[in-house]
């Protein structure tokens, strides 16, 4: 694990380790001030921290101070030496680190001044404020660790999803509303001012329907006799409508009408391009 890892986890054992170190018989109370820390290591250490409060908490925890009774003066010194060390090594520091250094410096100086009686009420003592903020931050740092450990989807828990053998999702049909349809026609014709008679197709719908039906039945190159087109059960009206449809289709050059002899049966064929010429249709 990188240095940062070891540094971040203020394992109690490290404190015992420190206590166990005997320097000239005296237990080593704190990190020697002049311990040389290579800049790269410092940068890594710095990355391990989430900000000044985190760094301060680390310093407090590492030396097993009780957060409620921290030797503010000592901690401030250590923090400020760290920060100055980093600035000497031109490690660019987030502004907040410097802000904290300034605050700590202010706390240190206030602690040295005799407490003037009148100064009681000029705002919360920054030290108390620092302790409160450290505590509050630690609260959420621990909460974050708890969230990290909590089971979460994608890492600890996988949701189950299976398919049926073949999934046929039928796309639902829209609501077919006749009134809407006719209103739409009204609107579009209104918009196009096509309502005057001569423009709009005058043929009744039945003729329109028959025109489509006839076109549908005709195949290129296979003419059909007129009689075969009109179904018996529509009666006289059917024949009229069918005839009108044929005239309309011819006018629209969609079909061609042929009669071999004056009273020969009338043949109808698609006005398809060249390919009907070879058809057995006798030219009129």
């Amino acid at each position, binding site marked *: 694990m990188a240095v940062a890892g070891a540094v971040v986890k203020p394992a109690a054992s490290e404190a015992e380790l420190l206590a166990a170190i005997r320097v000239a018989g005296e237990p080593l109370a704190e990190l020697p001030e002049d311990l040389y820390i290579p800049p790269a290591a410092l940068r890594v250490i710095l990355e391990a921290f989430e900000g000044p409060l985190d760094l301060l908490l680390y310093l407090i925890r590492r030396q097993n101070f009780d957060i409620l009774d921290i030797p503010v003066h000592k901690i401030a010194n250590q923090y400020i030496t760290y920060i100055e060390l980093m600035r000497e090594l031109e490690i660019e520091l987030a502004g907040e680190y410097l802000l904290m250094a300034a605050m700590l410096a202010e706390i240190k100086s206030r602690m040295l001044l005799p407490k003037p009686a009148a100064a009681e009420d000029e705002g919360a003592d920054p030290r108390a404020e620092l302790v409160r903020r450290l505590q509050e931050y630690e609260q959420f740092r621990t909460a974050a660790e708890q969230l990290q450990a909590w089971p979460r989807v994608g890492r600890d828990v996988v949701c189950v999803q299976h398919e049926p053998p073949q999934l046929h999702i039928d796309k639902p049909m829209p*609501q*077919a509303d006749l009134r809407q349809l*006719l209103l739409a026609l009204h609107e579009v014709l209104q918009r196009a001012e096509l309502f005057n008679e001569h423009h709009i197709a005058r043929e009744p719908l039945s003729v329109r329907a028959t025109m489509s039906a006839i076109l549908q039945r005709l195949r290129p190159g296979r003419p059909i006799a007129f009689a075969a087109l009109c179904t018996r059960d529509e009666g006289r009206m059917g024949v009229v409508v069918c005839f009108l449809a044929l005239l309309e289709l011819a006018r629209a050059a969609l079909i061609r009408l042929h009669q071999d002899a004056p009273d020969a049966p009338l043949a109808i064929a698609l006005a398809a391009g060249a390919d009907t010429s070879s058809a057995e249709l006798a030219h009129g």
Partner: protein
Amino acid sequence: MAEATAQDTVVAAGLVQCIEALLMAADEPLSVARLMTLLEHHDQPDRGAIRMALRALQARYAEAAVNLVEVAQGWRFQIGADYATLVARLWAEKPPRLSRAMLETLALICYRQPIARSEIEQVRGVSVSSSIIKTLQEYDWIRVVGYREVPGRPALFGTTSQFLDDFCVKQLSDLPELPAIKDPEALEAAVARLQGPAADSAPAPDVSVTAGGADE
């Protein structure tokens, strides 16, 4: 790990549950070979043990709504076929709304069929997107009834019997003729007649057949 003998149907419970977890989580079939590699660190089960575990699982899920099946690439859990329609409702979309453009296009096709797309655009004064035509065809409301023999051979569209069924009209000629469309009251009256319970399919006497053809 208790090595299960062939006859002995006792299969290491742990192995069955591990395979169950893997198959439930997997989003593709898992072969016996793949299961062996996945369970390497676990307890190095051999093929036989895995097959036995798979059979035990298959039996346990036989009656459930999801079953363990063997497919080409291996084993997987699958929703029972007879729940397919029920499950499809999870992804059923809401019925789409008919857009103004779609209604106008459909109405024009209905009243002026066989009609080419260019003519629809001419009347609407707006281009008709091919997706509108495609969708109306998907709904099986319109279809190509023929082609005009001019350069480009434009398709001619007409309405279908499905269109008549969906719009609850027996035949096209039941629809109000154009003069009735022009006048809003007449249109409302026509619609009411068509949709009203009493209205039977026979056209009302006052339908003016412009072609002058005598009424039947």
